[in-house]
């Protein structure tokens, strides 16, 4: 028990008691932590601004017997732009939930932290975040070890093959022959979009928004990755239905 310093980004905050919040912070030094921010819902609290969603803060945390307590906080970057634009807010919420669901508490992962921070900095600036988000999702899956197999058939491993489509169950694209042997539930994926997914792995997050993408392709690769991530998480994501309702993909 004692005080520790950490920098991190607020993944989520929940109402707690009369005027408190429980915040989940993804920190560079300690991984994902949860702490109570006492009085943080009172307008005059010193913690009110620093405990807003997506804020990058330097925190002084008191390690308690139960939940840790946020003692002091200083804003490094507020990421206010992400709360002032509905679409960006929806994407940032989706990323937050993604990290919150997949990352266990107190597991240090500074690579993911820096990648997440870089992602938010890009998201803040771009007009069309769809491709940035796809690249973020793919790269995050890779960090987790859930990278979808795109270069070969996920079942038989053959490199040269005719793709039948994408299977969340098999963890990647599967070839026609394997599909005919034992059919599985497939998500449609055209040849050009398969290529696009492969390129997104290598893409620089800062320039990917400049790529041309038609709405049909955006919907196809978006739906594919959302379905694959939900399959891997084994649960639906709340922020995803919000994001999809804004994108009007119906």
């Amino acid at each position: 028990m004692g005080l520790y310093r950490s920098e991190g980004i607020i993944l989520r905050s929940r109402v707690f008691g009369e005027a408190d919040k429980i915040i989940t912070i993804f920190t560079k030094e300690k991984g994902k932590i949860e702490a109570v921010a006492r009085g943080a819902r009172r307008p005059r609290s010193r913690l009110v601004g620093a405990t807003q969603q997506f804020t990058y803060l330097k925190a002084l945390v008191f390690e308690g017997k139960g939940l840790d307590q946020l003692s002091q906080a200083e804003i490094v970057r507020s990421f206010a732009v992400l709360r002032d634009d509905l679409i960006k807010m929806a994407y940032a919420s989706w990323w937050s939930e993604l990290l919150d669901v997949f990352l266990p508490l107190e597991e240090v992962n500074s690579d993911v932290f820096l990648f997440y921070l870089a992602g938010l900095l890009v998201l803040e600036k771009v007009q069309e975040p769809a491709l940035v988000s796809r690249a973020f999702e793919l790269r995050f899956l890779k960090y987790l070890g859930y990278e979808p197999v795109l270069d070969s058939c996920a079942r038989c491993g053959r490199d040269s093959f005719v793709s039948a489509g994408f299977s969340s169950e098999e963890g990647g694209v599967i070839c026609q022959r394997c599909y005919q042997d034992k059919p599985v539930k497939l998500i449609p994926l055209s040849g050009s979009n398969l290529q696009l997914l492969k390129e997104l792995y290598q893409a620089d997050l800062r320039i990917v928004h400049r790529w041309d993408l038609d709405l049909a392709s955006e919907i196809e690769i978006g739906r594919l990755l959302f379905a694959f991530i939900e399959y891997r998480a084994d649960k639906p994501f709340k922020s995803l239905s919000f994001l999809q309702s804004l994108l009007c993909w119906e």
Partner: protein
Amino acid sequence: MNYYPKPMSKLIKELSKLPGIGPKTAQRLAFYLFESSRDEVLKLASAMVEAKESLKFCDLCGHLTQDSPCQLCRDQSRDQQTLCVVEEPKDVIALEKTREFRGKYHVLHGALSPLEGIGPEDLTISKLLQRLQTGEIREVILACDPDMEGEATALYLARIIKPMQIKVTRLARGLPIGGDLEYIDEVTLSKAIEGRQEI
């Protein structure tokens, strides 16, 4: 093992279901009630039952009322062209206490929350749009909380109301009265600079 007689433990159990009441406070309240006069206890019990049975939400604005439409909706002296949208009935009371606003209200009963999965269909947004379609409202004031959920709600509402050719405004954000500038966080301060006014 239960150390209390049955009626006492039942009372403690029920009181501890209330928000913010833990087992110790529930125990203290139960003893207080036991030591109070029968009349005091009956007054409290009947106030609770009366509030539960006679209160409902106004069919028009969603505010807490005994009769629907509520007093605020029936009041013809109020500005019929300005509508203030709030998250909770408690916010109507807070705004009424200022005596600054003389228009109508609409209570959403919550706020959009991407992370909690609360979408537009969970709030009274469709009722709000019905009210706006009458053409009587000229300005909608969005008085949502200045947190992420409130921002999401305000941005979403602005997006669907603006095409209806209705003026949409948002409550100003900035410094609290009596606050010390050096303790104000950078987000609030930048909003205050953004919304500065000529004097």
